[in-house]
């Protein structure tokens, strides 16, 4: 954890009656540094928050948006919940798998893209949808999905 990140985290403490309230935002800040939060980072967070490392690890592993190991440079998450599936999301995911040559949940060997599926993203009116590096790409079709994925460096 950089001193800069630590300062940012400490600045969040007054927002909550107990500083633990700032744990989720703090994890986001640490994760922004290197893409995941490993055991050493969890220890540092625990120390900063006056928690046991295991408390931080429980939180980290509970939420889908936190990672405890390195991910690809780009995240491509396809929603496969019912509204998207009804509009072909799973077919699209399978084709992205073969396009990238990896299975859902894997990262391309060059570390470029991690492909995964996700539960409902709240974009059912513009299904299917995928989330690429945090941004929604809606009303997808296969060619658009491939174009977006190929544009990732």
């Amino acid at each position, binding site marked *: 954890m950089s001193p800069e990140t630590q300062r940012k985290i400490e600045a969040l403490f007054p927002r909550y009656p107990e500083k*633990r309230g700032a744990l989720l935002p703090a994890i986001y800040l640490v994760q922004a540094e290197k893409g995941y939060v490993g055991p050493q980072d969890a220890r540092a967070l625990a120390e900063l928050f006056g928690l046991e490392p295991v408390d931080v690890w429980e939180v980290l592993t509970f939420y889908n948006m936190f990672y405890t190991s390195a991910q690809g440079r780009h995240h491509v998450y396809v929603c496969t*919940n*019912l509204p998207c599936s*009804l509009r072909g999301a799973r077919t699209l995911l399978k084709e992205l798998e073969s396009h990238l040559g990896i299975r859902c949940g894997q990262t391309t060997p060059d570390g470029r893209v991690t492909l995964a599926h996700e*539960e409902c993203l709240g974009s*059912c009116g*513009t299904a299917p949808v995928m989330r690429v590096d945090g941004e929604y790409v809606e009303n997808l079709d296969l060619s658009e999905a491939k174009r977006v994925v190929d544009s990732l460096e």
Partner: protein
Amino acid sequence: MITQPYITNYLSEHYADDAYRELSGYEARGGFEGLRKAVQMEPADLVELVKSSGLRGRGGAGFSTGLKWSFMPSGNDRPKLFVCNADESEPGSFKDRLIMERGPHQMLEGILIGAWAVGASKTYIYIRGEYKVPTRRVEQAVKELYERGYLGQKILGKKGFDHDIVVHSGAGAYICGEETGLLESLEGKKGQPRKKPPFPAQYGAFGLPTTVNNVETFAHVPFIVARGLDWFLAIGTEKSPGTTLFGVSGQVERPGLFELPLGTPLGEIIDHAGGVRGGRALKGVIPGGMSMPILLPEDLDVRMAEEFLSERGTHLGTGGIMVMDETTCMVRVAAVTSYFFRDESCGQCTQCREGTGWIHKICERVEAGRGSPADLELLDDLPGLMEGQTICAFADAAAWPIQGLLRHFRADFEAHIAAQRCPFPESFEL
């Protein structure tokens, strides 16, 4: 990205207008009239007004908003909190996102009116982590409110009316939409719902008295205060007044949002969405987000309000309508649904943790053609082992759709077992 519903009403009237996202544009279109009126009222009268309005929570449970507010303790010995539940995660629901993206000040004004009513000094807006754009918009709107004195100390010059808003991001867990799961998550913990009692109004976030309301619920409040009871009660049904943002998704021509009075017939809403895609026949429709039991084509006449839907064995939920056409394999629907609940169970209660997993495994096996009649008996039985027996309603939400699918589409399951494969070649892919 949706900028406005296909059909608008009072909530979404100005959503297409980018200026409405900004405070000045919002004020120019009647914004903050409600709050100005509210602070002229005694807080208790304001709670009474919202109670009398019959406004029901739009987050899924449909509880009376005014009644919920009245549970907050009076007196100021402990700070009181509001939490705005913007963790919209119910599959089929995408309305809160639109409100935050296109009309964030409606929600914020509703929060401030509520804060005056119950004496809350702070609001945490818990927005699901995936909602980056809505989060940015709400943060921007909050910033404007501070700049213009709608937040901070002595709001609208009113002594003793101090309020702060903190925008807080979730991190990807459906269960944080459950109000006590949300409170745990807000406290920096796993989002595992709390056993009740104590209830949030006594012991909520950080142990403080807390009221949790949904985004859309807050958004209706300014209109009720500004335009009055008579106006509001004339919209919707007697027991469910007002409009809601119905979301229609799945196999329709024109998926999207439709702001219509509660009580609008289901078939009419689907017609607004252009009907079933490709002129196909309807097979089933989930009326209120994935947790709610499915309805049949003959149910299209049902009026979309809790009092009518509960007569058909289902619920309004979040008003997220999912439409499935005649090609749909309902065992696949069961597999997708049960996977979701398995994946999102917080894992603390035995029945939910183990039951969701078991149901999913059975559904997948039956879909893959490896099921037996005994599996159907199990699927009949397992939801009963889960329902009503756990800390929160998640297990019920996981049980109901399976019960609904078996009630109405048992033949689909039986056909898989008889054929030892999926007999719906044109269905959506699993």
